[in-house]
Structure formats: C-alpha cells, structure tokens
C-alpha cells in the first residue's frame, strides 16, 4: 500500500525527540445521496442566506462577527482570525501523560498512524514505554494553520495520534438534567447478571455494513423501474416500569 504522508512532525517532551510522519488511519466510502428539489429533481446547493434580503451571499461579501449583545456584532475579519493561530511549526509537544482510561470516548475525533521518519530514534522505546505504563500523551501541534489538541497512544508496535475535541465543544452529560429514577437492588442484581451473560470480547471484524449492499440493490432496482416494496420499520413495545423486573427475569432465563 502506497500510503501518503499527510504531515511530518517531531514528538517532543523532556529530552525525547521522535520524528514521525502522519498517515490516515480511516477511509470511509459510502454511497452518496444528494438533496434534490422534489418538483424537478434539481440538485440543491447549500447557500449562506442574508436574513434581511433573503438571498444567497457570495463568499466575497461575507464577514465574521462576534455577537456582544443581541443584534450587535464586533466585526472580525477572517484573516485576522487566522493570525490567532500560532506560527506553523513541526513540534508535536507533549504536555503531560494521563492514564489511558481517563480520556472519555466523547473527546476522540480523528485517528492518524505515525510512521517513524527515517533516521528517527526512540520510536520503539516510546511505544513500549506507553504500553507498559498504560498511558497516553496529551499534546498540541499546529498543522495546516490550525492548532490541534491530541492524545498520543501506542497500539501494537506503532504510535497513533488522535485529535481530541476541545472541552467547550462537548456538551456536559449532566447538563441534560435527566431525572434519576430509583431502581431496586433486585433489578440491579438481575441487570448485572444479565449483562455479564451477554458480554463478549470486542471483535469489530464481526460487524460488517450489510446496509450499504442493500441500499445499492435498492438503487439498482429503482433504476430498472421496479417498484420498491415499502416495509414498515420495526417498532418495539416499550417495557413498562412496573414490568421491568419481569422483563429482566425473562431475559436472564433466555440468556442462560
């Protein structure tokens, strides 16, 4: 596989410097559907619409503003925003190391494989060290005029760099204000036992995207002019709160 290098950088912390090349870790190809105008099947475009004139505004006529109070904006030119981005550099600076399990899945954004740049030293040793201590390095770097926050991790014999979302982009779970409903000890016990019964090793290869093939078949059928049989989505009957214990017991019996 001729993998293309996305960017080159140098991991740095304390006296350690490891030169690496970034490669994409994920490639997704999906059937792309477009949005059309129903009456004439013309493909729609996304446009930025002026709230006053109700018409599309070309990029050259767009500017950015920060709303200081309702309807009042401090004008900020997009170019000036770029200047807040730090100077480009090659450093992937590790600020601290944290136990891997501490980084919640909600933060992970994109994954890159790191290949040792030729003449790089310390790569294998860093991989082993991260493994043995079960830690991730929290780091920042600037790539293509954008600053990134990331987690440096070891996986097998290689290093991976994950970009992380900033904390202020993540909605806190407790801000949803969900009500806590008391659950009996008995229900919890059976629930735990049931989950233990249904636990399996994480084998992602077990799951394939069957839907994609079926969608392709649907498109082919329609293209041939065949009518598509519309199937109703399966709807499950919600378990009533006073039937929960019963449902859990029946589930446990079924799983055993």
């Amino acid at each position, binding site marked *: 596989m001729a993998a293309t290098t996305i960017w080159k950088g140098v991991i740095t912390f304390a006296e*350690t410097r490891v030169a690496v090349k970034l*490669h994409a870790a994920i*490639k997704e190809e999906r059937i792309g*559907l*477009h949005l*059309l105008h*129903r009456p004439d099947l013309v493909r*729609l475009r996304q*446009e*930025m*619409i*002026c*709230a006053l004139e109700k018409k599309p505004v070309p990029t050259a*006529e*767009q500017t950015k*503003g920060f*709303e200081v109070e309702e309807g*009042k*904006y*401090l*004008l900020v030119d997009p170019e000036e925003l770029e200047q807040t981005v730090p100077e480009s550099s090659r450093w992937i600076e590790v*600020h*601290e190391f944290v136990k891997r399990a*501490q*980084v919640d*899945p*909600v933060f992970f954004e994109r*994954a890159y*494989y790191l290949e040792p740049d030729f003449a790089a*030293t*310390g790569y294998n*040793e860093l991989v082993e060290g991260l493994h043995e201590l079960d830690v991730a390095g929290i780091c920042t770097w600037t790539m293509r005029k954008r600053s990134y926050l990331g*987690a440096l*991790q070891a996986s097998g014999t*290689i290093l991976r760099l994950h970009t992380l979302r900033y904390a202020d982009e993540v*909605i806190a779970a407790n801000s949803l204000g*969900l009500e806590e*409903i008391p659950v009996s000890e008995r229900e*919890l016990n059976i*629930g735990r036992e*049931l*989950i233990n019964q*249904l*636990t399996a090793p994480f084998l*992602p290869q077990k799951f394939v*995207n*069957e*839907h*994609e093939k079926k*969608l392709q078949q*649907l*498109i082919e059928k329609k293209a041939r002019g065949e009518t598509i049989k*519309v199937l109703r989505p399966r709807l499950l009957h*919600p*378990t009533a*709160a006073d039937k*929960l214990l019963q*449902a*859990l017991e029946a*589930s446990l019996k079924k799983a055993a």
Partner: protein
Amino acid sequence: MVHQGIWSGTISFSLVAIPVQLVRAVVPGRITFRLLHRTDYSPLTRRMFCPQHDTLVPPEEIIRGYEIEPGRYLPITDQELESVSPERSRTIEIVDFIDLDEMDPLYFDRPYYLVPLKGGEKSYCLLAEVMRQTNRAGLAKFVLAEREHLVAVKSTERVLTLVTLHYQDDVLSADAFAPKEESSVAEKNRIKGSIRKMMAAFDPGKYADARREKVLDLLKSKAQESAPVEAPHTTAEEGEGPPDLVAALEEIMREVKKKR
C-alpha cells in the same frame, strides 16, 4: 438546556425496550463567530437553494437522490430508505456487551447522547447504572438516514452516550509503518522515567481555556479599535455566542465605553 432530537426510537437489550431520543453531544464549530453580510451586517444562515428556480427550498420540498449519470438523479423517498433495513431504522438493539477497557479509540467516530422518552425513564436508569457498575458498553447497529452505523452505548455519569464506530473495513492497515529496528532497554527506561515525571490527571478544560483566552484577547483589541455594528432588525434566527464569552465581553465593552 433545550436539546433538539435528531432521531427517536427504541434502544433494547434482550427483552427490555426503552424509548429514547438521540441528541447532540458536541457543538460543532469551536468558538462561534457569526457569518455576516458585509454590506448590511445581517446574519447569514445556511439554507438549501434551488439554482434552477432561484429560490430557497423548504424541508418538505427536499428529497434524497442518487446520481445515475451526470446531472440525472434517481429520487429515493424516506420510506424507501427506511425499508432497506426496517429492523434497524427505529431500533438500536444491543447484541453484545463488551468491557469498556477493550474498546479501541481507533474506532470512535461521532458521539451523541440518548435521553429517555416518556415511560422509558426507569429502564433507562437501570441500563445506565448497570453499565456503570460493570464498566461495560453495549454494541449495536442502527440506521440513521441512509447510513448504517455500528455504535457503542456507554454510561457517562448515568447518561447513555452513543458513539458511532468505524467499521473494520474502513480501518486502513498500519502494517507498513511498523518499525524494524531493535529497541534499547536503557532508552526505554529513560523515556519511562520522563513519562512518570509528567503524569497528571486528564483535564481537558485547561486546553479549552487557553484557546478561549486567545480569542478573548483578539476580541478585546477589536473592541478598542471600533464599536460593534448593529444588524438590521429581522425575525429572530437561531445561533448565538457561548454565554460565558458573552459575559466576559460585556465586561470589556463597559470598560471601553467608560474610556470613550
């Protein structure tokens, strides 16, 4: 906080079914600046536009379609799309539970929260609490619009978080990048020593704060240079800056006004 539902249906494990709604867990777009029209300072909103009719298109006039040849599209209705996998379009059926520690972040794609709908509150609390106690996540497949997602559902402070996962088929091979050289034990121990000295608790807030400071500095200098512009009055549109930044800026604006 008002959360807008993206999808509603049922999440199930074995014989227990819980009505839920899918909501956002992430606010995209970093610190938000509003796009404005340079000429009249009116805010801009993203809308679907028909180039043929030269008009804005309301949601009910939009249909999905597949491009069969350049410029020619095959329309596909939402009902037809739901028929592709009818068992998964309204149901998130947990098929396996896995240990959270086994989850590899390589697969993580987009996070959402699930909130219970009426009548599902108790079963929801039970599932969230049991997964929290056992440190487990549930695996399921479900279809959102035209895409099928493999998802992991876990408990975060007793709220169910749903993370879409990449399929194994979409994960590129890393074999080519594996280093060939031997490693030195002395060098490894030196690196481990450095790592130990740099251990900390994960505190993502401080990185967000540092970035926020930078933007505030820029806004501060902008506020000194010129007064804010006023947008023409139109019917209210969605979208506003993050409230904490607004509060900080109000302070700045007051100081600027005093000096003038």
